[in-house]
């Protein structure tokens, strides 16, 4: 993923910030994770309708748009983070916390990480995050950061 970076930076110095800030420039098309359009997240509606947490959560699509803005401005790692984040919008809160816990050192076997990666792909269509987990599993195996079964 590193090859593209220098070119990216080169051709973005004169860019128009990719529509940033989206709040000001894409107000009509922005929508929350629930699908509720931002223009429908008004004080009026908040007072009269049921508003869920999803209604003020960021959507996968908006995160991808922010990732593009970051990449265009020369922040490729932030862009990749936001792309993983866009994948993780599909993961329920409790599962998200569980996945984080699994990635902490000494928590899982190599096979469990393989299963996690597979689940990320199959259940959440999270290819980038899955690859990231697989990469972690390989390093964990080499560096003794997998769960120790001896205990």
């Amino acid at each position: 993923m590193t090859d593209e970076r220098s070119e990216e930076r080169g051709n973005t110095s004169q860019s128009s910030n990719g529509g940033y800030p989206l709040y000001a420039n894409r107000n009509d098309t922005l929508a929350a994770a629930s699908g509720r359009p931002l223009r429908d997240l008004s004080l009026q509606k908040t007072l009269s309708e049921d508003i869920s947490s999803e209604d003020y959560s960021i959507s996968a699509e908006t995160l991808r748009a922010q990732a593009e803005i970051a990449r265009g401005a020369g922040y490729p790692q932030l862009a990749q983070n936001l792309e993983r984040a866009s994948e993780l919008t599909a993961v329920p809160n409790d599962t998200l916390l569980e996945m984080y816990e699994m990635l902490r050192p000494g928590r899982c076997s190599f096979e469990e990480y393989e299963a996690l990666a597979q689940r990320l792909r199959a259940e959440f269509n999270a290819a980038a995050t899955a690859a990231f987990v697989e990469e972690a599993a390989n390093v964990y195996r080499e560096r003794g950061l997998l769960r120790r079964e001896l205990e």
Partner: protein
Amino acid sequence: MTTTATLDRSVNGDTGSRRFSILAGRDINRETYVEEWAEAGLTVADSPYDPQPSLRIVDGQVMEMDGKERADFDALDRFIADHALDLPVAEEAMATPSHQIARMLVDINVPQPTIRRLADGCTPAKLCEIVRHMNVLEMMMGLGKMRVRKTPANQAHVTNWRENPALLAADAAEAALRGFAEIETTVRVARAAPLNALAILVGSQTSRGGVLTQCAVEEAFGLRLGIKGLTSYAETLSVYGSERSFVDGDDTPWSKAFLASAYASRGIKVRFTSGTGSEALMGYAEQCSMLYLEARCLLITKGAGSQGVQNGSISCIALPEALPGGVRGVLAENLLASMLGLECASGNDALASHSALRKTAKLMLQMIPGTDFICSGYSAIPKQDNMFGGGNFDAEDFDDWTVIQRDMQVNGGIRPVKEADAVAARRQAAQALQAIYAELDFPPIGDEEVEAAALAHSSEDMPERDMVADLAAADRFLEGTANLSDVVRALHRSGFEQAAANLLEMGRQRVAGDYLQPSAIFADGFNVISAINDNNDYTGPGTGYRLEGETWDALQRIPQQKSPRDFIDAQVGEPLPNLAEISTAKVGASAKEIVVAVGPAYGTSLVKTIGELDHEEVLEALLTGVAEEEFYGRVVRVYHSADCAAIGHAGARLSGSGIAVGLQSRGTTVIQKRGLAPLNNLELFPQSPSLTLEIYQAIGRNAARYAKGLSPLPVGVKVDNGARLRLIVKTALLHRREIDDIQEKAPQELYFRWEPDV
């Protein structure tokens, strides 16, 4: 006693020297200072064991970095090599001499992107080598240019020992009013977190919309608070520069990167935490310098895709400060973060010194260049309420800070506020939280508690609360379904419409995600500014961020500032009725006369000295002193000058005895003798605020004694070191008033209707 023995005793500090005993008792000597010890990681910027820069790339993969083969990489090396380095640039960057990049940092003709491009290809050892060439002044130049966001800002800490929600809300409201762009709270008891986060969220949004807030707790718990909409950023994602420290911190670069993505997936801004000294403190510095380990942290932070970092040693600050070059090292790590395009919240948070002088000196390294957040937590509360362990700068230092900004025309991110405005904001925030507590069925906040919070300084000023009941409510709130919209509705129903709108706006902004970009904050009116639309374009004088216009007006207008126009009201009054001008003064014939020469405004435009002695009584005292020596006094007014020496000089020329007392309207006095140069004299009393009527009388007496040819003991005046400091503006204005009365006119004989009581 031999010389050797004397030396030994002085080293041990028991020579009996009073000077050294006083020095030993100074705040600066309450600190610990140690020599470097590289093997224990106790060296700031340059360990003999630090790796040398190297990089070998084969087929797009790093095969060697900083002298280590890929096969020998630990987890951190792997992460840096595969995620942080910009490989297409790396060859060029590593081949560019480090001193050349260091020079680019201080060269105004080299813009930020040119250096960032090279920095992105540098290994940890290379980054260290670059900054090792630089002294602190050069680093400050570099920091001013490399800072990610053009506009500097500041972050506040708001906590209190009693976890009192009304006080948290009030302190957050005041911090928001003072202009902090971010407010961070934490807990004494972990379970209090949901309600503490709610209190500072409501408090800040009641006062000024757009302040980002967070609650520092354990990583997973922090994420839950964010998911619930109670926080908008998280910065306690700690990373460490050695593998063992990282694992002891119960994370890996991959788990931390995942956590960063998890936060971002819920629209929460993320900043990692690192800083010199943590690895040595945790016992796994691997003989490396603090700076080298920090460079690894920063590359992990960047590789993980965190938009920024809080570094500058943070809670470990006392450790580098115990070592030579510690404060320089901390500045170097701030600079490295900025070079890598990371938003930098630059420390200045935890208590770093007992010495106010040392604290301030260190602060200047970040405040003058400006950083994204000068403090990664300015303690906007008193020290005893700071649950982060005590701030380096506290609520008591607010005015010092705003005055320093005004002195230097530097924006340190804190606005001066008026007392009435602060109390109003505090009261409204506490009332808003009171209403939410009532609506959401939390343990009630009483009216007296609201009022106490409005006026409090610390939690000691607050009534007791049932903490057990509060914690139970916090548990229910976290587990329950109530969310941000319930809080918005509760505020609106209770009449806090602006606060409701601001809180909703925080939710709407979360949907847009603009504040996930590097170094994003909200300026007034929810206008997001970040590296994307407020990038630092410094290229020398006249470019980059300039404190001017409305912001400079606001920062210079401290409430302590007064109009100078009415400064001398106390010295202005009705002209003395018993002081009349007769005719042009002539040289006196009597050897028994002393001339008292007064300034142009004496007894007319001005009627009191700077010490607020009546001009009439001062004249009486002087003439009484003269009369005590059986001399008599003549009073003349000098018109051509307001200068004390010139007044005395003119008086001496007119005096039959050759001796005169020169007296300015503000009270400054000289005893002058004819024939002496104007700036020479017999006695000068420049400390006019310290002069009393008794002293003026003694001056009159001495003048007569000089006339008799005696050598009297000079009149003793106590030195008041603070007088000039307190009164210099008044001195200037009184002198200006006296100058207004200058005329091209010879000295005039005055008739002073008064008889000495001798």
